[in-house]
């Protein structure tokens, strides 16, 4: 039915099967859209956020999707700047994942602000000292870059490519893609960092406040580093999932292995930096502000459950050191199970890191007579957070079906007549 649109040389399931498969995802998407509309029309009273928990699930989701979307900028950086040419076989997918992550982040932000109709004031009345301004600028610019990187992919659709103008545009865009990618890498470094800065500059919140280097707190560098380290994990994870669902090998092992190796070393070095940061924070920063380390993790009964030491262990050891060690060993990363374990743990690890940086400072009292707060998101928050996942699945499915995402697919999956 839609065979004219499907790339040459690949096999896709029939349209009805495709639609049937997507239906449940679309239903989830609609649920999310409904929740989103509720939030827009009725306001943020639809959430369980409150004056203590002004930043909550959504901000975490934002930070998390941007961190795991970091695979796009980092593989772009590796390919276009450091010349790792093998990565061209996965870069399309990394770009697509990045595009989904970043558009999701923007959507969530648009729901999260109390006055979305005025959100452009962040540009118009920009306060250049605010990390959030830096985030907004870099985020939207980098989203533009990702769009520019994604457009040629769309234009390469078999049918569109037949139009000369479109063909020329996509061709010419490829021509100067390195310039865009470089700009994107620059922007991305900054906004990943400034997202870290968002938390690190809060000098009223000892849990997240960090000492500064120039104008940036430690977290600035840790966030960039961790996004670069864990972003590729997510790219590999999604690639593997896609391969699992389609039942096809889409990217050659050497490509994956290369990306995994780089990711592994990044994680390994990052986690060392993170441990040093944690140590310094616990032994120097916190005591100067009148806190002992345990104040951060031992609140009342319920808060320990949500904000106890286990989080720190999970983030640093379980989802940091372990995936790092797996991925830097050639033997282990070429073991399919271990590789999957490592990239899964890595993805969880970076999300956990973002979780603690957003949720813990909100939960923790700073005034001595204040108390720990516990927050459980409302269904509207959960639905709008799942919404991007559904949207991502749909966009990946459509893109995979109609666009030549994986250059190695034809070679790896020859069609037997």
């Amino acid at each position, binding site marked *: 039915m839609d065979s004219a649109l499907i790339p040459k040389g690949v096999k896709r399931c029939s349209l009805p099967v495709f639609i049937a498969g997507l239906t449940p995802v679309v239903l989830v998407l609609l649920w999310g859209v409904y929740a989103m509309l509720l939030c827009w029309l009725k306001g943020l009273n639809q959430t369980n956020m409150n004056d203590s928990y002004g930043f909550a699930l959504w901000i975490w989701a934002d930070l998390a999707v941007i961190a795991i979307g970091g695979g796009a900028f980092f593989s772009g950086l590796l390919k276009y700047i450091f010349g790792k040419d093998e990565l061209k076989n996965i870069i399309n997918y990394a770009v697509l994942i990045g595009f989904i992550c970043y558009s999701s982040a923007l959507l969530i932000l648009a729901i999260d602000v109390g006055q979305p109709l005025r959100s452009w004031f962040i*540009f*118009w*009345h*920009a*306060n*250049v*000292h605010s990390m959030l*301004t*830096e985030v907004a*600028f870099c985020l939207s*610019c980098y989203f*533009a*870059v990702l769009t*520019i990187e994604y457009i040629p992919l769309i234009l390469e659709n078999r049918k569109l490519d037949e139009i*000369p*103008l479109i063909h*020329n*545009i996509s*061709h*010419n*865009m490829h*021509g*100067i893609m390195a*310039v*865009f990618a470089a*700009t994107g890498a*620059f*922007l991305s470094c*900054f906004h990943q960092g400034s997202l870290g800065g968002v938390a690190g500059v809060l000098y009223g919140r000892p849990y997240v406040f960090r000492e500064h280097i120039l104008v940036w707190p430690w977290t600035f560098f840790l966030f960039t580093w961790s996004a670069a380290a864990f972003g590729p994990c997510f790219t590999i994870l999604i690639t593997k999932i896609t391969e699992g669902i389609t039942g096809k090998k889409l990217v050659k092992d050497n490509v994956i292995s290369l990306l995994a190796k780089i990711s592994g070393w990044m994680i390994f070095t990052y986690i060392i930096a993170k441990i040093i940061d944690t140590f310094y924070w616990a032994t120097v920063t916190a005591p100067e502000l009148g806190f002992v380390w345990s104040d951060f993790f031992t609140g009342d009964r319920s808060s320990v459950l949500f904000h106890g030491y286990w989080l720190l262990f999970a983030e640093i050891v379980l989802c940091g050191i372990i995936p790092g060690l797996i991925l830097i060993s050639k033997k282990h990363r070429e073991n399919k199970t271990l590789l999957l374990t490592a990239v899964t743990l890595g993805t969880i690890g970076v999300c956990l890191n973002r979780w603690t940086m957003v949720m813990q400072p909100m939960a923790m009292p700073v005034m001595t007579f204040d108390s720990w707060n516990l927050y459980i998101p409302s269904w509207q928050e959960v639905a709008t957070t799942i919404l991007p996942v559904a949207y991502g699945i749909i966009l990946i499915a459509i893109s995979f079906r109609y666009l030549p995402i994986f250059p190695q697919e034809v070679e790896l999956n020859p069609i037997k007549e």
Partner: protein
Amino acid sequence: MFWFSFEWVWDMGHIVFMGGLWYALGILGIGMSYVIIKSVKETFYEDSTGHGDNH
């Protein structure tokens, strides 16, 4: 964002920060304009077979 909004100050912060923004936007804008103009030219004003096709 612009020098005519009242919170604007001509200080290092604004110059570096806004400079960065306009620089990035500039690259993207010029880059895309270049691509479009070039493509339109190639499509409508030149022989469309004139360039080497790489796929």
